[in-house]
């Protein structure tokens, strides 16, 4: 099994697809950071005497659940509209204005952006391609004809997917740390490393584990369709369609608060709802996910974990069941 996993990593990491997907992921993070930096620059233009330290001081007195921070400000004001309308000595800005750019909060924010679903989408493409390659290239038949047992073959594929998910998240963490170092230096004028602690390491590891689980649920769903239809493209279409339909449906129900008003319970058993519930745990005050809108009484961390693990087990078990009986004649 270990040999199969090593061989799969050996061949898959020589493809251009994982790197293209990583590049897209990095570019979306850079784009997010650039937008945040532009917003901060506009704020500095309006309030030239505002500093990060004013924000940090104000944050200490702010409700942890609040999405906004109110900063006392008595410095110069350059925005013409503020000069006309008058200024009450306070600035209220979204909490993420600085957090997106300053370590360690920027890493936290990076997890938050995952709730938008782009990373899930990229991983779905990666998983479908990885599982479907064996069918497309005929290497699956070649492997089985060389005495590789079907359970070992598919088992190694799922293990490799877990490793790829971990590498995928690790790459994003490392890249976001690198970007965070640049933006922190720009915003504060230097980096303090006092955030490096066992707590931070624990946070990062637990976040990686939770996101790996979320990615694996989508990946195993996608893999199931790639196996059933013996095709990468079919798996991709199924995974992306499911994700999009789920995102649309949940946004409709959850953001409109239909969930709470009508006490609808079925969304609580969807992948997306539970994925977002866990992302809310990793990154409280998530601005993009459903975190703020989730009806917290309808689920718990344990329930969410169990639902996602349950989905994963069902999808993987179905994959094994179908693959073991599958006829692998020339297509």
């Amino acid at each position: 099994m270990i040999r199969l996993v090593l061989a799969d990593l050996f061949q898959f990491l020589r493809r251009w697809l994982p790197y293209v997907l990583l590049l897209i992921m990095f570019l979306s993070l850079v784009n997010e950071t650039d937008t945040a930096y532009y917003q901060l620059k506009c704020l500095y233009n309006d309030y030239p005497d505002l500093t990060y330290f004013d924000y940090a001081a104000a944050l200490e007195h702010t409700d942890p659940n609040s999405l906004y921070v109110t900063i006392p400000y008595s410095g110069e004001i350059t925005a013409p509209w503020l000069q006309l309308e008058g200024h009450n000595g306070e600035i209220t800005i979204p909490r993420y204005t600085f957090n997106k750019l300053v370590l360690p909060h920027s890493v936290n924010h990076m997890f938050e952006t995952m709730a938008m679903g782009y990373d899930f989408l990229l991983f779905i493409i990666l998983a479908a391609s990885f599982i479907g390659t064996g069918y497309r290239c005929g290497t699956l038949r070649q492997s089985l004809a060389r005495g590789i047992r079907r359970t070992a073959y598919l088992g190694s594929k799922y293990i490799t997917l877990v490793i790829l998910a971990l590498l995928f998240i690790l790459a994003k963490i490392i890249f976001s740390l690198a970007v965070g170092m640049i933006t922190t230096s720009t915003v504060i004028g230097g980096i303090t490393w006092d955030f490096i602690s066992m707590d931070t390491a624990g946070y990062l590891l637990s976040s990686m584990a939770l996101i790996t689980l979320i990615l694996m649920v989508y990946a195993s769903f996608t893999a199931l369709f790639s196996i059933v239809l013996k095709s990468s493209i079919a798996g991709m279409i199924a995974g992306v369609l499911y994700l999009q339909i789920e995102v649309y449906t949940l946004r409709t129900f959850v953001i409109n608060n239909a969930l709470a008003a009508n006490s609808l319970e079925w969304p609580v058993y969807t992948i997306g709802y539970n994925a977002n519930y866990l992302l809310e745990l990793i990154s409280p005050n998530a601005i993009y996910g459903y975190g703020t809108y989730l009806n917290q009484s309808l689920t718990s961390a344990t329930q969410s974990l169990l639902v996602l693990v349950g989905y994963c087990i069902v999808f993987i078990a179905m994959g094994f069941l179908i693959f073991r009986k599958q006829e692998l004649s020339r297509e």
Partner: protein
Amino acid sequence: MAEENVIVTRGLTKRFGNKKKSIIAVDNLDLEVHRGEVFGFLGPNGSGKTTTIGMLLGLIWPTSGSIEFFGDGKSKPAKLLRKVGVVMDSPSFFSHLSGLNNLWYFAIITNCASRGDIDKAIEMVGLNERGKDKVRTYSMGMKQRLAVALSLMHDPELVIMDEPTNGLDPTGIIEFRETIRRLRENGKTVFISSHLLSEVEKVCSHVALINRGRILAKGSVGELLGKMKAIWFKVSDADGAICLLEGVEWIKSVKKKETGLVVAEAEEERAYEINKLLISNGIHVNEMKISEGSLEDFFLATIDAGETVK
């Protein structure tokens, strides 16, 4: 001493579809391939060759029947397949990897070939100069050669080849023949499915003919070809001769070749009877010649006979 069986199938059957509408791809196939044989598995397209090989390799599940490798009915098929080299009906490689890395991939997963074995195999098929190039840049013939290298790199006891000469140029075919000869000299057993009958005739010691999933004939090449000879007659009335000979039961086939030339396929000993029959019916025989039948003639005659029976 009894010959050691390398492949034995008993009542091997594959039915596609459901109970109401099904197609029998392989019907009650009994096959025995002995150690050291180069066994040709011949049949027209859609006759069930690839399905049979798929079942041998565990890619297609038989509807009924049994398969046994190396006389071992107890071990799991996956374990026994480790001793088998395979050339698939279509080359199956990662196109983004080089030829060498493809071999390396399969060497890792099966743990039965070293770097040295890979280098030796790639050199044997003449791909050492292109080994580091991506497979997507290979021609069909080069992919086929790589498939041969892959099938041989772990020194298998049995090599199963499905249409191995597909895409090979004349030089490649000669090299392929040489490879088979070497394998045979080294005591390996080779099972080849091919439609290139002249090639099969040159390299195989034994053959089985399959059509519509059923074995029509099997045995050593010499045995099968020895049964039937092509007897050529130069006659005064070719059409009359054909009409006459077609009605004779023990003549397997009669064909008109050129003006006045008729070729009848029958047992050598009965040539004089044909001659006598023609003369007694007023057809002058100017010349008579007995030639060795080819596997192609035998194949066509057997397939025709099979069709007639059906």
